[in-house]
């Protein structure tokens, strides 16, 4: 039996087990039969094991260079390094869907195992809901995109193996898609628990704990995936930026917005019993948007450097699935409308719940704005026969102020108390952050003045010139000011918290009190650490406004100015290895007459895909800025090199902020205390 046959057989078994598990879970829920539910749960575990088997088969096929399988032939070649052969598993459309099934079935098994005793009534519903989602993807694998499909005719007729797209042969690209998949797929778990809570009528609190933790897990991986995608674009595409509102990156960002909104609004439900309908709707929307993202990436309805290509059949199937999820889920919510009513009302706009609510509205508006703008070119093509292009500036025009509004709310929310905040406590809480925010704004305005004076060669800028500079950088200046304000809020929260901890236990050292705070109030202070990461990211993003870009054509020996730096062309180097040909440019980075570094940007031509040369950038990194160089074209006879040179101020703070955010998420997720300990 060939691997292709065994693989296809395993997919058929997977489909059969999926059907049986769904039927057993539905029957078990209907008859309240422990035997049937137990069998359905075993079906979930079996699904995970069989999908792991199918995945191990495809990995074996890649490692053994089994080019009789079409998918292996299209995405691998025998010269590829072992590491990339394994990651080619999810490098193409068919394999990525099998990877999706693997992750979903593993998550389903984990979620069911962790919660089956805690939420016994909900479990059968969780099983059939997750089973249906999994069955949809397994069905796609069998009927539309079988990764084990062999060549019908002789494999040689298809030519030599094509290999993984060179753009994807990058360490970030190895981690980026799995991170996004982990985020996307794990959103199915909160959805299943949320819907099971709605179906069983246990909408009060039973589902919150499990759902919150899973959503945080999804959110963490979406964050990691999005940032790694940005880092990949920054290092691999050579255009000097990391985010250009690419439709496929947007597809990951949209559910990130709704998941972020949910992680805030669920706290209102926990504390006040409010917003049940809203929270269930956010869980549904987050999952639905994760499927929308999958649809956008795989159907080819959007044009992107990351998309898998056009597939109208897949577009229709996903379209129908999306409608079914939306209609079915909201029909269940309407059915339980009365049960989902709030137990309390908003008492004051000067309350933390109102700040969270505002944050939710902004996040939801951002999600639908990005979704609408991303899909608009496709809709315009469908309805008006003309594909309208939406530029980066359109997104930035609306998203920058919305992002700054979020940054402001991040500095306001923690200072407010639940229910209502008294006037004197408002003064006491807001004084330091406001002063700090104002001082930061004045400071950056002075720095802007100094920058302008330097640009004018030491002459004092006129009021008009200064006004124009402030207008040009209004969002960056506001961003820096808000970063100062929000940073002060976070620091104040920590300082006051430590002070309270020390008052309660004077023997504690400052460090011990800080650690105790993080351990005892994990969610609150873990959340503040995430906020700190976001502030650092905004700081890095605001720096972009002061970036410098130059496109130059220079010959070896020539020097060009780039801001405060001099870039000298030190020559070209043509090399070759077993996989590709490379032309590397050596550039000296000089400042104040001193050579700081040698940059080596390059162009690579893979033998398998010579028509798709890759751009390998090189950068001189400091905490203040990056000096970034990429090669566009090289004339090997004259040595004339076309370069794109950038100075990207503060860019590395975006990556530092991400690390801080991930650290905060790890604190928030933490470990679950044992049931006994809680009681």
């Amino acid at each position, binding site marked *: 039996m060939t691997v292709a046959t065994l693989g296809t057989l395993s997919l058929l078994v997977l489909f059969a087990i999926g059907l049986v598990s769904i039927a057993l879970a539905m029957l078990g829920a209907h008859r309240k039969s*422990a035997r049937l539910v137990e*069998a359905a749960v075993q079906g979930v575990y*079996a699904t995970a094991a069989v999908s*792991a088997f199918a995945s191990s088969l495809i990995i074996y096929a890649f490692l053994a260079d089994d080019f009789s399988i079409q998918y292996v032939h299209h995405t691998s070649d025998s010269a590829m390094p072992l590491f990339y052969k394994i990651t080619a598993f999810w490098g193409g459309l068919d394999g990525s869907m099998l990877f999706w099934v693997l992750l979903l079935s593993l998550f389903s098994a984990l979620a069911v195992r962790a919660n089956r005793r805690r939420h016994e009534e909900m479990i059968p519903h969780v099983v059939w809901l997750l089973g249906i989602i999994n069955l949809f993807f397994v069905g796609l694998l069998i009927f539309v995109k079988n990764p084990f499909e062999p060549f019908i005719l002789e494999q040689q007729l298809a030519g030599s193996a094509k290999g993984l797209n060179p753009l994807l042969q990058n360490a970030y690209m190895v981690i980026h898609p799995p991170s996004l998949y982990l985020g996307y797929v794990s959103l199915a778990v909160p959805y299943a628990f949320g819907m099971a809570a709605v179906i069983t009528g246990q909408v009060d609190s039973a589902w919150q704990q499990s759902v919150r933790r899973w959503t945080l897990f999804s959110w963490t991986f979406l964050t990691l995936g999005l940032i790694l995608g940005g880092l990949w674009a920054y290092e691999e595409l050579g255009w000097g930026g990391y985010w250009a509102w690419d439709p496929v990156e947007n597809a990951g960002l949209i559910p990130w917005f709704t998941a972020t909104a949910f992680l805030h609004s669920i706290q209102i439900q926990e504390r006040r019993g409010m917003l049940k309908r809203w929270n269930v709707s956010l869980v549904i929307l987050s999952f639905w948007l994760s499927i929308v993202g999958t649809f956008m990436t795989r159907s080819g309805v959007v044009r992107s450097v990351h998309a898998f290509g056009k597939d109208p059949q897949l577009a229709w199937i996903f379209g129908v699935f999306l409608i079914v999820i939306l209609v079915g889920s909201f029909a269940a919510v309407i059915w339980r409308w009365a049960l989902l009513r709030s137990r309390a009302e908003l008492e004051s706009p000067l309350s933390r719940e109102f700040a969270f609510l505002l944050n939710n509205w902004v996040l939801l508006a951002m999600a639908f704005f990005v979704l609408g703008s991303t899909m608009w070119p496709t809709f315009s093509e469908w309805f008006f026969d003309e594909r309208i292009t939406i530029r980066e500036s359109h997104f930035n025009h609306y998203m920058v102020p919305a992002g700054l509004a979020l940054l402001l709310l991040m500095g306001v929310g923690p200072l407010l108390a639940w229910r209502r905040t008294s006037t*004197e406590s408002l003064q006491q809480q807001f004084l330091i952050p406001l002063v700090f925010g104002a001082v930061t704004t004045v400071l950056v305005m002075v720095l802007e003045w100094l920058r302008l004076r330097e640009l004018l060669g030491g002459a004092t800028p006129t009021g008009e010139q200064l006004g124009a500079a402030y207008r040009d950088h209004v969002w960056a200046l506001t961003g820096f000011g808000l970063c100062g304000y929000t940073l002060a809020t976070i620091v104040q929260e920590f300082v*006051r918290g430590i002070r309270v901890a020390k008052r309660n236990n004077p023997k504690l050292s400052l460090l011990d009190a800080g650690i105790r705070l993080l351990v005892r109030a994990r969610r609150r202070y873990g959340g503040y650490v995430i906020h700190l990461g976001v502030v650092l990211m905004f700081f890095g993003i605001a720096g972009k406004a002061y970036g410098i870009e130059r496109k130059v054509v220079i010959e070896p020996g020539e020097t060009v100015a780039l801001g405060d730096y001099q870039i000298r062309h030190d020559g070209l180097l043509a090399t070759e290895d077993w996989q590709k040909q490379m032309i590397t440019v050596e550039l000296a980075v000089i400042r104040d007459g001193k050579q700081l570094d040698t940059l080596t940007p390059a162009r690579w031509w893979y033998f398998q895909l010579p028509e798709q040369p890759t751009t390998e950038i090189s950068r001189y990194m400091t905490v203040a800025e990056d000096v970034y160089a990429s090669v566009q074209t090289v004339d090997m006879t004259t040595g004339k090199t076309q370069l794109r040179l950038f100075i990207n101020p503060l860019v590395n703070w975006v990556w530092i902020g991400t690390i801080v955010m991930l650290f905060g998420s790890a604190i928030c997720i933490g470990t679950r205390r044992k049931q006994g300990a809680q009681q």
Partner: protein
Amino acid sequence: MTEHSEPSRVATRASTLLLIALSLVLAAAILLGLRFAIGVDIDAPTIALAVACVVMIWALRSMWAIVVALSRPQVETILVEADAVGPRSELTELREEKARVLRAIKELEFDHAMGKLSDEDFKAVGDRYRLRAIEVLRLLEPTEGDAELHPLLAEHLATVGAKLPGEKVSEA
């Protein structure tokens, strides 16, 4: 649904561990057999094949578990829904509510200590939480001494005109 007894859970865990150990031994035996008996090079595809074999055993075992679950007599309990499940769910709900209210009180005290709440607000909001906590604790741990209400709760119930336990109808 039926709760698994501790011994059966231990037995399940032991059998799982045994299966993991056996799978690893089998994979090692296959690889060593291929290496020394047939002289095959242990390269990446061979290791992948051994892993696939182990995962296949796991897949077969988990499929068998469905059949076992369907034929197992001891879990053949038909639950009489709501009545059977109701009290347990209610208890779980109450325990969760207890944890939630106690956490809310702690946070409130923390916020007050940090100066986010005025004394007046702290008292007003805190009293509501404390009353709820007392109610939940009483529902969770009813004891004989419960005939007497906590003075704070009794006072609150009196202000809202509720009938106190032990009061005769004529007195109400």
